[in-house]
């Protein structure tokens, strides 16, 4: 999604005069065009994310619309207090952009993964998270963030390719119908469901994508599905703690849309202390490939 993001930021420049793009020295072979087009409004703040986020808060206080880009882990976790105090507390329109949410940086290893970025930011007041699924979501999300006066986080990743396409980006999107269980997920990890080698299993799944957090009210169509099928499976490339599954659990209980069973598929971390590509880590966590088939079979036959 990085190329689409850069393109969307270029397009945005034609419509807004208040943009400033701050990068934490990342974007090699991706943001050169942006740097040229933004000129003095492209600021490479170096490998110094704490300063970058506070500088962005200062820029926002000056009436500008700063975007701060880094690898997801570095964009969120190193400057967490700056995000909390300088951005969220003051409700300033700083737009954080983290690339490679989840295991996106694959073999680069655990320091480069972000398995707690969403959970960390969910705890903060005024923060709204955007979780695109496919490449076409990115320009819509960038425009929505530019129009959103609150602090935002954009979790970028390799875009999912969903056969037959998906509806335009929204807080809730139904991707497909299915007979016996409702899967609710966030981000491109949902692609694993479309690559299942077992068509009959796939047919059983109704799939929904969550596009923003905090969750918006559960759509009535989804509530009806959950009451009918009674089985919900959540799916996220993020630790279970403070992730989508926990957010949904709360939403279900407080809105009285109570499934009979709730199972969470999530990033397990590094259970074998071995490393690999994003796909390899997804499989180890049961989020893709045969491990996902086997998890789903167990859940659906239970």
């Amino acid at each position: 999604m990085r190329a689409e993001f850069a393109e969307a930021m270029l397009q945005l420049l034609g419509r807004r005069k208040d943009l400033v793009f701050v990068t934490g020295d990342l974007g090699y072979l991706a943001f050169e065009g942006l740097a040229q087009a933004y000129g003095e409004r492209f600021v490479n703040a170096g490998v110094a994310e704490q300063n970058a986020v506070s500088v962005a808060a200062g820029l926002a206080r000056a009436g500008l619309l700063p975007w701060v880009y880094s690898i997801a882990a570095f964009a969120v976790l190193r400057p967490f207090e700056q995000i909390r105090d300088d951005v969220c507390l003051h409700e300033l329109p700083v737009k954080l952009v983290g690339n490679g949410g989840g295991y996106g940086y694959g073999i680069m290893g655990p320091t480069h993964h972000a398995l707690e970025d969403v959970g960390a930011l969910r705890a903060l007041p005024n923060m709204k998270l955007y979780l695109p699924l496919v490449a076409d979501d990115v320009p819509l999300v960038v425009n929505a963030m530019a129009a959103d006066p609150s602090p935002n986080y954009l979790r970028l990743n390799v875009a999912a390719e969903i056969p037959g396409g998906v509806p335009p980006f929204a807080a809730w999107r139904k991707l497909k119908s299915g007979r016996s269980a409702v899967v609710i997920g966030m981000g491109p990890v949902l692609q694993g469901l479309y690559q299942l080698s077992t068509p009959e299993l796939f047919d059983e799944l109704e799939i929904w994508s969550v596009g923003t957090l905090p969750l918006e009210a559960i759509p009535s169509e989804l509530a009806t599905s959950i009451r009918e099928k009674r089985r919900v499976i959540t799916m996220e490339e993020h630790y279970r703690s403070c992730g989508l599954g926990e957010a949904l659990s709360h939403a279900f209980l407080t809105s009285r849309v109570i499934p009979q069973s709730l199972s969470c598929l999530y990033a397990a971390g590094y259970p074998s202390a071995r490393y690999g590509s994003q796909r390899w880590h997804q499989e180890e966590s049961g989020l893709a490939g045969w491990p996902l088939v086997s998890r789903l079979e167990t859940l659906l036959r239970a």
Partner: protein
Amino acid sequence: MSKRAHAGHIGGALSCAELLVLLKFAWMSDDDALLLSKGHAVAVLYSLLAEVDVLTPSQIDSYRADGTELPAHPPFNTFEEISFATGSLGHGLSLSAGMALGARLKGLSRRFFCVTSDGELDAGSVWEAALFIAHHKLDNLVWLIDRNGIQGIGRTEEIMALEPLDAKLRAFGFHVVVTGGHDFPSLLAARDESTRQLDTHGRPVAIIANTVKGNGISQLENTVDSHYLPLGDEQYERGLDELTRAHRARLDEYRNAR
């Protein structure tokens, strides 16, 4: 107000009192902005805001009381004069840098003054900001360091040595002005030298103001206790008396000089 609130952080407030007075009454224009990065010295800031009628006497009386608008570190989004809630040390210089860069990008001539403590310089983020300010040659920003030599539970040079601080700042690319932090003739000279530097050389300026923690109250002066502890009754009476006398002497000096 500090006595009524049984408030500590008196030493670090008294050490930067003249610095803030200089900024507010002898340096800053209406467009300029002050950010008190050492938010624990907020008693001085509130006093200044009362002096210019931004805060009312009853607001001052509510300092630190339940339900007050004036907590022990500056609040957020409450007063236009307080652009950021500070208190967690090591944020203010970066925030000032962002506002200064923002003003430059918008073509505004606004200037930004950031007052940090010296213990605060232990925080790595301060040095990230210093690199950033020097790299971007932010000549609409002045960094003032309240060099009182004492931090939370001891002397800076024993806890985390900062010296040679002026050389460090010069190496980062700042024009460094070292001044006494309590007498106005020195502070005014530091102001003039800083303004000259900013206007003619386009280099960022850092002022190291050598100050005394708890300045003006002899029992507090240069003591670690003055960082956290509130004033006792006797300390308060004697301290107030000392401050009043010093203030009168200063006024006389000023009148005689005219």
